């Protein structure tokens, strides 16, 4: 049984100089075979394993991670969580996730520091404002919280934002989702890992999947850098690398991998209490609990698996940042980095079956999948366990690229986030 985390156990362990804590998850060697193998130890993969065990009682499960847990996009995103998406399909899926976020720390007994501090999305042209209204009205009719703020209300809500009407792109107004916010990204991976491990899931790090064993169109196992592993079902959740894994399985995806960059400032005392996103003046920013400002840039145009992007993308973003927040000009940035995002033509994810039987993919979250982590894992676990898509996942099947039923969220995803 796992040690329980609480202020009491902390105090108790303090007496023994914290020498009695045990590992949050084991590091077992891979077994010869599993009922389900999840490829990819990011938030989505770990959540999938967690819900497989918790909701479906499937515990003979391994999560195979080529590096360290949470080292993919889960560990490098700007942690914005919200559910204000335009189309019904997305709104339902992301709202499902948001509801899970709201109880996640307690469910996992791991504080993921989910902070519902409010998310402001600014509009800077007449056209922007129309698009924003369309989205807010749709979200509201889906029963999800969202409001429209006028310029004056924006200025009041976030006083350090430059709302002067003479700006090059003046703020016309904004949408606000009060339940939106940020979470501590690493804790999400670790919390799920600990929870899954406690339910018997084997978490295997430093193990790269190098191939699939497919017989008669059906998956039977995988090749890894630590040997072959048998599997009745395989769920692949590798974000930017999904194209590589699809290639191993003999098919292609409508996905390209691009670098997406983010950065942090030096830590300062609190100045920004909400999350701000602007599509026109391209930037999104929040302040973490440690005090650094976290800001995100856009994707680089070219395909890359490098986690390194181009400086102009960052330069433009910093330029935009000082425009929206003139008081940030003298602050300094501390670190910049990149992630590899899996972008889909309609800016929506792909969840479900593949041409190979019992091989499932969950990918295409691109620039915005962190917020979906619990929901994605939850519906994907259902999909794998039952072999049929969860009803919230059904519209996101790979199929849609054949029929043309795309779920175009470029508007909602206007800025990477």
């Amino acid at each position, binding site marked *: 049984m796992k040690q329980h985390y609480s202020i009491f156990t902390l105090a108790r362990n303090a007496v023994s100089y914290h020498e009695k804590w045990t590992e949050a998850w084991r590091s077992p060697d891979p077994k010869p075979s599993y009922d389900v193998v999840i490829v990819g130890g990011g938030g989505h993969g770990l959540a999938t394993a967690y819900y497989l065990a918790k909701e479906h009682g499937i515990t003979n499960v391994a999560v195979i991670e080529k590096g360290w847990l949470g080292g993919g996009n889960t560990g490098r995103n700007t942690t914005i969580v919200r559910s204000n998406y335009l189309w019904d399909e997305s709104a339902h899926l992301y709202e499902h996730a948001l509801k899970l976020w709201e109880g996640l720390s307690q469910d996992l007994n791991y504080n993921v520091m989910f902070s519902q501090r409010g998310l402001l999305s600014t509009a800077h042209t007449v056209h922007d404002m129309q698009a924003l209204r369309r989205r807010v009205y749709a979200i509201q009719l889906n029963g999800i919280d969202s409001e429209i703020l006028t310029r004056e209300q924006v200025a009041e809500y976030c006083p350090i934002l430059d709302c002067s009407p003479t700006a090059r792109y003046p703020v016309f107004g904004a949408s606000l989702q009060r339940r939106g916010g940020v979470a501590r990204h690493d804790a999400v991976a670790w919390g799920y890992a600990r929870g899954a491990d406690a339910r018997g899931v084997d978490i295997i790090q430093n193990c790269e999947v190098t191939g699939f064993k497919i017989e008669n169109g059906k998956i039977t196992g995988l090749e890894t850098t630590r040997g072959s592993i048998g599997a009745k079902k395989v769920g692949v959740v590798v974000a930017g690398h999904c194209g590589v894994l699809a290639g191993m399985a003999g098919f*292609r*995806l409508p996905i390209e991998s691009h670098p997406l960059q983010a950065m942090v400032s030096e830590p300062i005392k609190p100045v920004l209490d909400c999350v701000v996103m602007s599509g026109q003046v391209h930037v999104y920013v929040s302040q973490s609990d440690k005090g650094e400002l976290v800001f995100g840039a856009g994707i680089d145009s070219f395909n890359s*698996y490098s986690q390194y992007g181009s400086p102009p993308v960052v330069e433009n973003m910093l330029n935009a940042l000082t425009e929206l927040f003139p008081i940030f000009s003298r602050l300094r940035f501390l670190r910049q980095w990149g992630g590899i995002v899996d972008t889909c033509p309609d800016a929506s994810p792909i969840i479900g079956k593949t041409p190979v039987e019992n091989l499932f993919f969950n990918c295409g979250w691109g620039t915005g999948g962190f917020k979906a982590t619990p929901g994605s894992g939850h519906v994907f676990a259902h999909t794998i366990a039952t072999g049929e898509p969860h009803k919230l996942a059904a519209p996101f099947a790979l199929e849609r690229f054949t029929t043309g039923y795309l779920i175009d969220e470029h508007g909602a995803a206007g800025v990477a986030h």
Partner: protein
Amino acid sequence: MLLIPCPYCGKRDEHEFTYAREGHIARPTNGEQLTDAEWAQYLFMRKNPKGVHYERWMHAKGCRRYFNVARDTVTHEIYAVYEMGQPAPVIERENGR
């Protein structure tokens, strides 16, 4: 920031170019005879390789010509640039990089 050798203008900074996606995808001339799934292959499905990528760029701020580039998607090393219509060169890479 990449330094891309435009086959016409010479080496220029990446910001002068527009990335124009995977290269060598011919448009089917018999679209009507293809199934929806086959058509989707052309429309959406991409190689997205880790390693050498044969891709197109357009020198947007320069000569406005499209051309092909063979580039490593991990190191960003550019192996070759070649004009539209030329076949993709085979890139030999050291130690399986």
